[in-house]
């Protein structure tokens, strides 16, 4: 009885996401299938691969992509599993979190589950149908990725390894499906559900990073550590996949149980009695915007600080490592007067900047989210102009962006100077990071432009940021042509302190950002509100 209607609701989810899910699956599969031949083309001989293995051996890389397996015989398969599996698994986890939250707590919050529950549908029908769909989605992904990789007929990538590669991704997806389903019961709103699930994902990544650079024990407390524990294409261990899925099913059972005993609309995390009057901070659009996103801002701030610290803590090992390896030191230090650490730092800065761009984009796009929920009209029917409203969200986005960047750099510097013999100056790091602000502003400008002119398409902003991440971070690795890199604002930022500060380029980016924002403001002032 609890499950009556599950199949019908399952069909409904498939119908509602008939475009969304295939896009996710297609993009994820493509990301894997395209990378493997790229590696194969990039490092043709075993010798070239071995050099790459040496480069990857340092603790900073280990913290970032995980422990390398088979570094002694660094085949294309081993390289693929080492450099791509973790990030792909994280993307699969993100997909699962977003889709599960959308079909559980978000629907419940919007009152749709109430409608369904008033019909002859079981108490667990919605959650179970969402879980089934997500399990199926992850299995399809596993099959597509596994068979796709095997079909490439790369020597070091056999059928078993390829299938395990896919299975490891699916295991990560199913695990985070379960985690999100659980938080959908605990938290009473979808923001909380998504936020807590992402927190688990972030902590998993950090635990694994710390574990991988230390003795490894900690990695076994992280589901992402389990994914890497498969040692795909080297040892092909299947048991971590089985273990991850077993853990996932346990969590799912708990989520189903909690769903069966709770009231509709309620959560297990308590809500307390609130204020009867607004505080002095809640006085206008800026106060409201900050208040609504308070939790997100605080969690991102902590996250960015931790990100900086975790990168910073490996900087000391990096120096040590290079000191003990003459060949490597010669090979990767072509620039005069800059240390290898400083060079490595420039790469970190671009990654940190792109991650720090996520919160300001969320802050800016909140304006559209509020509009969709018919809440901006409360402000606009009072003495608030559209310019002021958009300006408030822009101010929050810009402020948050700069703060995140500074926090991450502070963490990087603080941890770095604690472990390094010759610390890098804080100002040097800060300059390198702040040079990325114009790129962040261009992204924010894109968000504003879409809100103003194409409000239905605001999620394109995320696509653009994702594109930037791929071409800037992995562009060299995948040998993308230079123009692809130049399509992203992050591709134009001079890499301080290795490169010179380029005033003309930076000014152009600032102008572009201002132009995009202006167009956004004009569009927003001219269009209808669309609830």
């Amino acid at each position: 009885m609890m499950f009556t209607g599950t199949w019908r609701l399952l069909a409904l989810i498939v119908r509602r996401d008939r475009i969304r899910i295939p896009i996710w699956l297609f993009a994820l599969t493509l990301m894997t299938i395209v990378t493997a031949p790229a590696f194969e083309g990039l490092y043709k001989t075993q010798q070239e691969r071995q050099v790459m293995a040496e480069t990857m051996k340092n603790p900073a890389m280990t913290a970032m992509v995980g422990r390398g397996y088979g570094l002694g015989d660094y085949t294309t398969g081993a390289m693929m599993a080492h450099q791509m599996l973790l990030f792909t698994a994280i993307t699969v986890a993100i997909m699962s979190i977003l889709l599960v939250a959308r079909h559980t707590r978000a629907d419940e919050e919007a009152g749709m589950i109430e409608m369904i529950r008033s019909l002859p549908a079981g108490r667990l029908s919605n959650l179970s149908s969402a879980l089934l769909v997500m399990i199926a989605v992850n299995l399809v992904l596993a099959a597509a990725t596994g068979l796709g990789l095997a079909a490439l007929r790369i020597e070091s990538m056999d059928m078993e390894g390829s299938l395990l590669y896919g299975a490891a991704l699916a295991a990560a997806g199913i695990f985070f499906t379960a985690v999100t389903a659980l938080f959908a019961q605990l938290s009473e709103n979808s923001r909380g559900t998504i936020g807590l699930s992402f927190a688990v994902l972030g902590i998993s990544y950090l635990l694994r990073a710390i574990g991988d650079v230390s003795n490894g024990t900690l990695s076994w407390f992280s589901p992402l550590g389990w994914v890497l524990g498969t040692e795909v294409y080297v040892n092909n261990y299947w048991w971590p996949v089985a273990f991850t899925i077993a853990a996932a099913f346990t969590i799912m059972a708990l989520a189903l149980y909690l769903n069966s005993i709770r009231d509709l609309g309620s959560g297990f995390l308590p809500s307390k009695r609130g204020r009867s009057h607004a505080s002095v901070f809640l006085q206008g659009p800026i106060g409201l915007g900050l208040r609504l996103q308070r939790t997100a801002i605080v969690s991102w701030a902590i996250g960015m600080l931790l990100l900086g610290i975790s990168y910073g803590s490996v900087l000391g090992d990096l120096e040590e490592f290079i000191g003990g390896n003459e060949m490597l030191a010669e090979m990767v230090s072509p620039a005069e007067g800059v240390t290898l650490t400083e060079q490595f730092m420039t790469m970190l800065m671009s990654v940190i900047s792109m991650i720090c761009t996520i919160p300001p984009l969320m802050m800016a796009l909140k304006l559209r989210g509020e509009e969709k929920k018919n809440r901006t009209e409360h402000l606009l029917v009072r003495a608030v102009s559209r310019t002021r409203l958009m300006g408030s969200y822009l101010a929050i986005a810009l402020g948050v962006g700069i703060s995140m960047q500074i926090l991450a750099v502070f963490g990087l510097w603080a941890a770095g100077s604690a472990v390094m013999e010759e610390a890098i100056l804080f100002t040097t790091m800060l300059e390198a990071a702040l040079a990325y602000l114009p790129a962040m502003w261009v992204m924010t400008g894109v968000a504003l432009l879409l809100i103003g002119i194409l409000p239905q398409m605001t999620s394109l902003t995320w696509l653009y940021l994702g594109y930037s991440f791929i071409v800037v971070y992995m562009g060299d690795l995948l040998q993308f042509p230079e123009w692809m890199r130049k399509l992203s604002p992050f591709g134009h930022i001079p890499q301080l302190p290795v490169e010179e500060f380029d005033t003309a380029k930076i000014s152009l980016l600032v102008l572009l950002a201002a132009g995009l924002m202006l167009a956004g403001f004009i569009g927003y002032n001219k269009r209808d509100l669309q609830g």
Partner: protein
Amino acid sequence: MAVLQASGITKKFGKFTALDGVDIEVKEGEVYGFIGPNGAGKSTTIRVLLGILKATGGEVKIFGMDAWKDAVEIHKRVAYVPGDVNLWPNLTGGEVIDLFAKLHGNSNKSRREELIRKFDFDPTKKCRSYSKGNRQKVALVAAFSSDADLFILDEPTSGLDPLMERVFQECVMKAKREGKSILLSSHILSEVERLCDTVGIIREGKIIETGTLAELRHLTRTSLLVETKQPISQLEQIQGVHDIENLQQGISLQVDTEKLGDVITYLSQFDIVKLESAPPKLEDLFMRHYKTSNRGGGAR
């Protein structure tokens, strides 16, 4: 003097014409009842008046200013209550009322407390836990505690219980006594009859009837129940008579209000024993307009 003057507003969403030349005039100190079936364009009209939607054609002047261009200036003197109040789930009702007051600019603190008491509202709860009625109270308290000159109310009582509806009506009447103007969109016709001076009926994006209640009553039919000594002959041939029914207590019929005198004169030939008349109701007019939905324009 007209506080709100909308002339010939059209609004198209793509090819769909939502509003097709809507005219509304709300005079100072007047309560204007805005009625019409679901989907007729009431809320769209109101959203154009508020500058949330941009009219495709026509002109809206509020306090002599343009509803789209001078929205902020106008809104300093306008209070709005939507029919469907969506609030921020993690703010309390009290916080939202205060925020709205701040955004509005001029608001009355003691009035806020008085209204919260009158509406029997708990401002310390998070908005996500409020029912529809309670969310509407948030908007109503915020609206009536502001010093607005024009109130735009879009089905403001659809979630209130009868007791609270009474409180709402008192608020409207008080505002009217203070010389404020009110545009009230409503489905509750008894409410409109009690509160409104002028009524406009919208259907399929057009205003099909407008006028004072007295004028509109004139257009409606009066129901009569009549008993005579002699049988009434050829009643159906008299102009303005409709829906004749033979009942046990007599004959029931509907008469166009303007033909009432003629019909009574005719009936009196047959020695009236009993004559009951029920006053014309807005509802009858309303029903006639609603039912004849395919003909366009008024029923008359």
